[in-house]
């Protein structure tokens, strides 16, 4: 997440925004965001419906698995990657989408 914060100014150039989703409660996320000085929104999704929707909720586990999803302005999922974010690949992908006409 700190990597996303570090790259926010680059995401701006590609007209992209970042949203973090976690199963942690709001209070935990507030302290966490404050500690890392994150300025982008974090969603507390205790009921995990977003995780189910994006297939990041392992059955019977209280946490999401790590996944990065890029959604274009039409609401289409354009990129999905599991594990820790590959920040450079994300930037290259955003650049590619931007070059394709601001999808």
């Amino acid at each position, binding site marked *: 997440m700190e990597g996303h914060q570090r790259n926010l100014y680059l995401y701006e150039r590609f007209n992209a925004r970042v*949203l973090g989703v976690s199963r942690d409660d709001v209070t935990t996320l507030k302290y966490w965001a404050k500690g890392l000085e994150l300025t982008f929104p974090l969603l507390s999704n205790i009921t995990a419906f977003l995780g189910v929707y994006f297939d990041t909720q392992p059955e019977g586990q209280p946490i999401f698995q790590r996944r990065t999803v890029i959604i274009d302005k039409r609401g289409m999922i354009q990129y999905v990657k599991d594990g820790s974010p590959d920040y450079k690949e994300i930037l290259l992908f955003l650049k590619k989408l931007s070059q394709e006409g601001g999808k």
Partner: protein
Amino acid sequence: MNGKKLALLFSLLIIGFHLFGCATIKTSAKPSYEVTSKGVMIYNEEFEFNLPPPGWRLLRQEGESEFAFGFLKTDPGPFPSQSMFVYDEEPFGCSMGFEDREKEFFKRFLWNAMLNLQILEKKKVQVLGGEGSEVVVEGKDPIKKEKAKAKVIFGKRAERVVAFYITQWRPIDGTYDDSAFITFDQFVNSFRFLKKSFYETLNDKIFSIFPFSLSLTLHSIGR
């Protein structure tokens, strides 16, 4: 309806699903390096610097480690006598200014050692051909009877902050070895970039990995 509103607000939305404290480690090939006859090391065809004296062992990045690369030396004396210096392309923190970045950096630097770091010295320096900032800190652990002294130099690679730092560990009644800090300074002063960084080229390069990325994406969605 909500989707349309989102579309108006954002052209692209990156959603990160995360769990705390359980980062997965991505492995990648070790970067290459070569040493010229003049004792200059060229690392990953991107960085050039004077090789430290014998006794310093190269540390190469193998994945998403906390630094790009560095050197480690085991010092004479009991545990934990050792020195390590590194070049860090993505030092802790996010700010582009040195003052704020220092504060963010020292929130997490050596955090798992549980040391209460005290600033011994702080000054502006010239580094990487521009203005930089140097901070010397020391921390002691009276329980483990250990101490560490570190010098951190923040500089700029284009618009992003990068850092060099050396950390020297000693038993709490041990003596620091200044020669390691001199070696570190020589490393920093000789350091230069042989090509533009990824971020500098982001705006003018066309890469060919996208079709592959896109096919992975579609495969994932189809699961």
